[in-house]
């Protein structure tokens, strides 16, 4: 697969349910959660030894940004590692509550909407070549992002006109524009935020805010993998023409609303295609593209799974209840409604819709399914646990991880960002790391070696 850096940022939902009548401001709860991560301090922005970043997002959400990954598999395990890190903080935060004489439960959800219709996101970041016309990029990508929700959607029960419906995607109803620079007011299919954290003459950043947060590793793998292949095609000027949608924002909502996946959306040229048909055009073109470039097992695996998923979706979406979030959750909810004889508007169903995304593995319904052997995973728990400590070994994240581990061992305070590292102290130099593909930094190595000699 073409050399590329990608990463996922996930904003989590956070709520405290007191057992008594004492409510606490969310800032305070989030503070306790962060204490679980880094004891004795209250940093609202922390880089970790695995190269990832944890911070407080707008709206008081805990947010986890994976380290720079150059393998799709790494993006999957590092995204899961973020869940586990937060889960680990929960008992510590609960204990802090008790010490203050408060009792209640803290819940963290990896979803994208609350019951009032507020939304928070899962942002995908892909490093792209700067010299490609960005207008061409967006034109190529919009129909792809509009239609891929059929396998990346996380499912949502929504009341429309007093009646509950099951939607494919959590985010689709919150997207209002084709492209925009804002992430909070007019969310768009293509966001134009462009901070490459790398040589800006060579690279730009593609910041995608349209996707749902996924519990399913399989869905995350496909989400990042298929997008990376499409980007490689665009960079190699292997274009897909004729798929421009008449009204992408409307099409996105229409697709999200139809769980049978039969709905056809209108293209600019007047033709109508279903989301599966649009995805098939991309898939076939991707297969053609891959036959021209050097064969690699990762791209082949992504394309095989992509094809499998589209075939199954065409037959009967219910067949993917192990792989795809919206289908797994829908199948669970339908079994429950059958058993209880209740409808989609039952409050217990609304609870399931939320609790599927609980990152606490003892409570979360995704994890209940997983424990029962009903979920298809991509990584093992060992892979995920390793990613909690260990950065990807072939990107800049390794240097950052080495530096932070060193500073901690030496009990030195430090300042770190995506592109620089610095031990605190006016005499210390700032170490710049502008190349995200470089996993070794001579100055960091020298720093560590010198400290070892002094010992």
């Amino acid at each position, binding site marked *: 697969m073409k050399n590329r850096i990608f990463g996922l940022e996930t*904003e989590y*939902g*956070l*709520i405290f*349910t007191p057992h008594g009548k004492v409510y606490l401001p969310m800032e305070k709860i989030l503070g306790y959660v962060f204490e679980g991560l880094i004891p004795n301090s209250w940093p609202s922005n922390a880089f970790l030894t695995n190269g990832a970043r944890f911070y407080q*997002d*707008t*709206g*008081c*959400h805990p*947010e986890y940004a994976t380290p720079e990954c150059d393998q799709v598999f790494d993006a999957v395990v590092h995204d899961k590692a973020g869940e586990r890190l937060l889960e680990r903080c929960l008992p510590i935060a609960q204990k802090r509550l008790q010490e203050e004489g408060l009792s209640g439960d803290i819940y963290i*959800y990896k979803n994208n909407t*609350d*019951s*009032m219709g*507020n*939304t*928070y*996101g899962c*942002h995908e970041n892909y490093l792209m070549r700067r010299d490609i016309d960005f207008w061409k990029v967006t034109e190529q990508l919009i129909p792809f992002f509009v239609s891929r929700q059929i396998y990346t959607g996380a499912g949502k029960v929504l009341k429309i006109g007093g009646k509950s419906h099951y939607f494919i995607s959590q985010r689709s109803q919150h997207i209002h524009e084709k492209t925009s620079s804002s*992430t*909070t007011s007019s*969310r768009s299919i293509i966001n134009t935020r462009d901070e490459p954290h790398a040589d800006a003459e060579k690279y730009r950043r593609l910041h995608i*805010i349209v996707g749902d947060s996924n519990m399913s590793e399989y869905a995350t793998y496909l989400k990042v993998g298929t997008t990376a292949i499409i980007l490689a095609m665009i960079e190699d000027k292997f274009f897909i023409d004729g798929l421009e949608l008449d009204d992408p924002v409307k099409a996105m909502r229409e697709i999200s609303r139809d769980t049978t996946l039969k709905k056809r959306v209108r293209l600019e040229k007047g033709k109508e295609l279903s989301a599966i048909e649009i995805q098939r055009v991309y898939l076939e073109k991707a297969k053609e593209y891959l036959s021209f470039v050097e064969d690699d097992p990762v791209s082949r695996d992504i394309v095989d799974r992509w094809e499998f998923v589209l075939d199954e979706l065409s037959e009967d979406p219910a067949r993917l209840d192990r792989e795809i979030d919206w289908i797994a959750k829908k*199948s*669970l909810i339908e*079994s*429950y409604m059958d*058993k209880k004889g209740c409808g989609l508007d039952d*409050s*217990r169903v*609304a*609870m*399931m819709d*939320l*609790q599927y995304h609980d990152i606490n593995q*003892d*409570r979360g*319904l995704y994890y*209940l*399914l997983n424990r*029962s*052997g*009903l979920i298809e995973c991509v990584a093992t728990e060992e892979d995920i646990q390793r990613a909690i400590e260990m950065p990807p070994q072939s990107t800049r994240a390794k240097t950052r991880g080495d530096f932070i581990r060193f500073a901690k061992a030496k009990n030195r305070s430090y300042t770190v960002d995506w592109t620089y590292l610095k031990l605190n102290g006016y005499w210390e130099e700032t170490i710049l790391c502008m190349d995200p593909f470089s996993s070794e930094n001579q100055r960091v190595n020298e720093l560590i070696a010198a400290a070892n000699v002094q010992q």
Partner: protein
Amino acid sequence: MKKQDKKTEEKQESKEEASVEANPEVVEKGKKIKEDLDKVMDEIDDVLEENAEEFVKNYVQKGGE
């Protein structure tokens, strides 16, 4: 009426056909999934939050990003 009868007949026929063609492995797998899902249904009441209505209503976040 007659038309409806015919339809039902056709339906039954196609059902029989389907069961003849069904791959025993797939049927077995389907059965296993059904059993596993039944087990999940038994467990779900233990983990599902009580006061669902109240809980969901109170789940309000500030918008993010």
